[in-house]
């Protein structure tokens, strides 16, 4: 069987025997910057804008709802089941379809909807990244199939960067089958290195920070 053959070849190559212990691996290297919440939020929004994403600061849920309503402006949308979107009343906006629990129905809706609305589990200040964990609250396709993605995130969710993410989430696989980091709109430069946005994922991304 190939499993044993490959493992045996690896062990022979390394001069190791089956079940042999290992040396101590290099210490984990995580440096969490001590940055206050306001600075983190400002940095995150700047980074999103630098990637041609659109941003908004909303003092309250009502403000966030008003921003999303203005972006929608009659477009059809799918919203995730994130409690935050319900709290902010975003799921009740005209044209918004929330509450999908069935994969096939969600997929059919996402394939035609013009906008996908989600929250995010975390956001990263230094790179302008949204961190999305698949769960009953967040599906994978809402932030992927529609040409526009709006993410509404609480200010307390903004972390300094990757190091802080992996400090508070050392084993993401214990929580989800899929953690996706989203940094700006979908893009390519495969033809003559000319930047084109919106290849397979959304070409337009809005990040709204509430609080």
């Amino acid at each position, binding site marked *: *069987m*190939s*499993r044993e*053959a*490959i*493992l045996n*070849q*690896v*062990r022979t*190559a*390394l001069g190791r025997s089956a079940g*042999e212990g*290992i*040396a101590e*691996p*290099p210490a984990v*290297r*995580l440096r969490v910057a001590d940055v206050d919440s306001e600075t983190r939020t400002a940095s995150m929004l700047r980074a999103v804008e630098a990637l041609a994403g659109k941003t908004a600061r909303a003092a309250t849920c009502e403000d966030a709802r008003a921003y999303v309503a203005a972006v929608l402006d009659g477009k059809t949308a799918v919203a995730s089941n994130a409690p935050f979107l319900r709290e902010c009343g975003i799921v009740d906006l005209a044209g918004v379809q929330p509450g*999908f629990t069935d994969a096939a129905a*969600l*997929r059919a809706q996402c*394939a035609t909807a013009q906008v996908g609305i989600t929250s995010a589990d975390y956001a990263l200040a*230094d790179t302008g*990244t949204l961190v999305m964990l*698949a769960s*009953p609250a967040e*599906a*994978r*396709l809402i932030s*992927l*199939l529609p040409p526009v993605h709006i993410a509404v995130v609480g200010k307390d969710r903004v972390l300094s960067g*990757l*190091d802080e*993410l*992996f*400090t508070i989430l*050392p084993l*993401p*696989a214990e929580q989800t*089958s*899929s*953690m996706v*980091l*989203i*940094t700006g709109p*979908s*893009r*390519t*430069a*495969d*033809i*003559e*290195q*000319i930047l*084109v946005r*919106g*290849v*397979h*994922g*959304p070409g337009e991304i809005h990040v709204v920070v509430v609080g």
Partner: protein
Amino acid sequence: MSVAFDEKVHSTLADANLQLAIYRATGRLIDHRKQAVAATALPDYQELRTQANAIKRHTIEHLDHYLEQFEGNVTAHGGKVIWCQDATEVADFVLGLAKARGAQLIVKSKSMTTEEIDLNERLEHHKLESVETDLGEYILQLAHQRPYHIVAPALHLTRYDVGDLFARTLGVANETVPEKQTLIARAVLRQKFLAADIGITGANFLVADSGAVTIVENEGNARLTTSAPKIHIAVAGIEKVIPRAQDLAVFLKLLGRSATGQALTVYTSFLSGPRRAGEIDGPEEFYVVLLDNGRTRLLADRGKRESLYCIRCGACLNHCPVYRKIGGHSFPWVYSGPIGAIITPQFLGIQREPSLPFASSLCGACAEVCPVKIDIPKVLLDLRAEVKQAEQRSGTNRLERLAFKLWAWVMCHPRIYEMAAMAAAGVAPAGDGKWLRRAPALMNLPPVRAWLSQRDLPPAPAKSFRDLWRKR
């Protein structure tokens, strides 16, 4: 140098448009990387490189342990690990699974590992449709070409090439604007994603403590490949494993910056197993194919083992003065540039293209930009030694050895050397320094011709150094 290698090099050098395309594309990637790793942008860049190298070294030295840990965690999350020694075993697995599930359409995201084993061709041979979905790879699949560069696969094609290609193969109007061409590809591929039965990806990292596959990309095609179909198969070389999810904080900071100058690529997916109870979407089956295909042979060589640390960022290609002239298709296999020059002979055997380790000026730019600090020039030198040792064993370099013996003998005997120098000076006319190549008898000897096509002996000076020294 094989005839094929020689011909491809010369046709690339003679193509002015191609030279400009390579020069511009790699130049832009060089600039982007330079800004991204500058001290102002990433103050701890060198520390991160050192850490990345230490993690890779540790993992490769204990590879069996981490592969078993990875397998255990994939299984614990409801996935399955398939161990394959070569291309045939991978194709057999995919074909068997496709048959069992009645699958006909496969979508693929960019993967050098599947290029390495010609997976598309093998699947299509068995009447499965396997569609590349990265824009560059899709273009190449339509054009029946292999990638020109690890991260910019279609850098050698112009938008006019793409316009003609789309018109010819897709039956659409000939569009020459990249935005419009991208929309054409998006529309075609979107239907493929929604209809596909199986999604096949590569993997940038296999995370042992999580049983997770990590994939970085910019377009969203890898996300679609791993989210829309019911089955996800990731094909990865066994060297892709890293110990901990937390190590990604090091590697992700280096990979995007080294490849395209991005702090992070647009999408980074961390996937462990099929979708779980309660999760709304995602694949129902999750497989990771662990591929050997020559890697364990390489692993056995302690001195060159570090070749397996590579994270395929492509920075060494962009910075290589040889790659920037001869391009990606001159190289004998799917991996090009400095990293291709060291792993191709080790994966396929040195006889595949014995001149490959010599196609380098050993300037060291590759080692300087390598995010995991592979000492590529050192490995090239080791490979050169191997080529020469093999020639010695087979006796194919008798003439060369004789010439060097003669040379050594002359150099060790000052009187003989002086006489030889005087004789040479007597024959060599003063002038343009192209005298040897005007000697027809010499030029008819193939090895001499190859050598002299780029070089000649300089004209002899009126007085030799020894003369001047004596009369000082």
